[in-house]
């Protein structure tokens, strides 16, 4: 029972993280019908930014500003810089290909992912960078619920992720920008004719999605401690799985998919073996794709002639 609950907490935490990355994925797919394979690498960049913020303020053991302030700086900086990177990516690589059919942007996305991964390798080397979270956020500062302990980093990740998801929902459903995003997702040409600045809307979508991925990267650094240039690819695949399982293009679906993948991964690791985690998660995706290609919450698309 204790193992079950502990894995439940782990699963919800990582699920929240995957959900955040999957949200960006799904948003971009919604407006552009583009599978942005480079999305996972934005997460990796975010994790590196968090690491360097810790270094700038004295390193994990001797943080010279209040810890909450440090966390705020980490998240804000990661969100802004990674968001900017997402916009640059869209402007440079995807916009020229907007009307170029389906295959060309996918290949570009693979190229960007590969480029970002190797840029990080060139800039930061292949060694693991460690956040050393316990040095500035005490492990014992968590809460005890029944049999399990939830440490404060996990609480923070879950709360922040949920807050961001709710915030995104408000942005998409309540604001002018969100309405424009939904309009562009529905029919880009019609949206353009109605006077919506499509380029701006798409850029804003990329910014929001990338910013979420960047913040998820910082969370991953705090949670898993280790950052290297390849974490983006695997995390990207997982988030991708989450988005697809939930129904790609659907935002609640992305969050749900994130939790499904996070929990599946935690329970497989806890009860089966960590060796087979990735294999089983990928297998899950293939099964979902084949049985229900539109995902859990997605709607089957009619193919237009």
């Amino acid at each position, binding site marked *: 029972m204790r193992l079950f609950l502990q894995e439940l907490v782990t699963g919800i935490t990582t699920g929240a993280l995957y959900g955040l990355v999957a949200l960006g994925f799904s948003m971009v797919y919604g407006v552009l019908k583009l599978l942005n394979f480079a999305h996972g690498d934005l997460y990796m960049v975010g994790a590196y930014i968090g690491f360097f913020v810790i270094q700038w303020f004295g390193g994990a053991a001797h943080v010279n500003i209040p810890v909450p302030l440090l966390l705020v700086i980490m998240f804000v900086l990661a969100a802004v810089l990674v968001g900017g990177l997402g916009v640059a990516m869209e*402007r440079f690589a995807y916009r020229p290909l907007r009307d170029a059919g389906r295959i060309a942007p996918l290949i570009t996305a693979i190229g960007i992912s590969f480029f970002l991964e190797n840029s990080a*390798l060139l800039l930061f080397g292949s060694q693991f960078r460690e956040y050393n979270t316990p040095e500035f956020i005490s492990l014992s500062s968590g809460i005890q619920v029944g049999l399990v302990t939830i440490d404060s980093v996990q609480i923070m990740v879950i709360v922040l992720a949920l807050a961001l998801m709710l915030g995104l929902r408000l942005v998409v459903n309540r604001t002018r920008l969100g309405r424009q995003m939904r309009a562009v997702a529905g029919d880009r040409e019609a949206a353009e004719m109605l006077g919506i600045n499509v380029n701006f809307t798409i850029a804003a979508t990329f910014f929001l999605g990338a910013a979420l991925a960047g913040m998820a990267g910082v969370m991953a650094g705090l949670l898993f401690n280790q950052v290297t240039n390849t974490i983006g690819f695997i995390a990207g695949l997982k988030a991708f799985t989450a988005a697809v399982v939930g129904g790609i293009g659907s935002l609640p679906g992305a969050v749900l998919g994130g939790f499904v993948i996070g929990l599946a991964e935690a329970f497989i690791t806890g009860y089966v073996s960590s060796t087979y985690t990735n294999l089983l998660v990928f297998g899950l995706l293939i099964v979902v794709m084949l049985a229900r290609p539109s995902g859990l919450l997605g709607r089957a698309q009619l193919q237009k002639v």
Partner: protein
Amino acid sequence: MSVYPQGPLGPQEPPDILENPPGSRGPRLGADEWVARQEGRREYLPSWLGEAQRVFERIGWWPRLAVAGLAGALLPSLGLGGFQLQVGIDALVIALLAVGLNIVVGWAGLLDLGYVAFFGFGAYGYALLSSGQIGSAGIHLPAIVSLPVMVIAAAILGLAVGLPSRRLIGDYLAIVTLFFGEAFVEFTNNVAPAKLGGPNGITGIDPIRSFGIQLTTNAGYYYLLVIVLVITMAVLRLLDTSRTGRAWRAVREDPLAAAAMTIPVNRVKLLAFACGAMVAALAGTIFAAQQTSVFPTDFDTPILILVYAALILGGSGSIAGAATGALVVMVIYDGLLRNATDAGFLFYGLILLTLLARLRPWRRLAAVLAATVALGFAAHAIAAAISNSAVAAGPGSGWLARHWVIVPANPQTPGNWGFVILVCMLIALVQVSTRWRTILMVPTIYLAAFVWETRLVVEPSITRQLLIGAILIVMMIARPQGLFGQRRVEAAL
């Protein structure tokens, strides 16, 4: 007949007969005869280059292939050493893979991101069948048995992967195949370590041995690969012009219209999958036999991206393009590892070539080049005057690094910043107007040289990966038909 049916200022009706430009020969523009001669309305290069292209195309495909094959076979006798021969073998394996991928992506238009798994499947299958891996004594099947067995098995696996995913269109197919590829790597890494060896792979694989011949030297594998590649290309060429080939292209262009024309769309897609898998597995078996060992990392994403880069560079949809693209990519890829001087020639040569090809008129080109050279010398002189450690290129570095590019004593951090700024500047270059682009180009080229001398040349194995990624991005934006492909003229003039 009224002279001005729309009034004297109304739109003029186009003339019934399009006039040929003065001085041009051949049938009248737009006539059926003209369309027939244009063979699918291609776009040719301007001036004499286009003329040369036309002459080249008038030669039949098989003499061209034969000449290319002969040239390839004669290369080792020109004195290719051990390293060049290895590069040649790698290039031929990638060429074989690219030619196979071309069936799936180029002809049938199915984005298969798990293609390398079939390559790995062939290699691992051969490794199990023709080595001491299974049982106490091993199976040690001769290549003449295990090679066809693996090719057929790969075709069946291709069908098995394609069958459930045949209904998935576009993106969804890409997802399933991507995960199939990843699952293959995970599988070989983790499942049955006693048989598949886990991350340590399988070693001690038999060389190809049949009809009393045993291939043990690299030269032997080189010739074998040339023969296999030429035969594969010939078979594929025949396939391309057959009913099946036309059906593939019809399905790629419009599945619905193809179905209306009674083409069995699903079966045709599956066939493309299976054919691609067969070529990949064939490449895999030869690869395993030549390497005498296989590891999961040999079949991971970087190889997939390499094959895609080859296909995209050469021009997706053309057999010759795929093979040529593979050769070019591998020469760049492996050439970078060899030594700094060669890599430098390659790098500066590529920049110069790009400038020559893209910058018009020549006055702008000359101005940019002169300004870049001047900027380099000026910057170097200023940096040298300020501090000695700013221009402390090591004794092993080239002439450029000592006299033109600033290479500080501790180049890593400035080089890294340079790289970041360079990427920003490249993105900026695309956005600004032509005049600013010309002006910005000068510092960008200099910065590129700086980053090259400080960082990229130091880390050749990363640089070549970066280059492959950049090739994919830039080619898709600038020249989606590939370096050697021709764009089809969409509208009739």
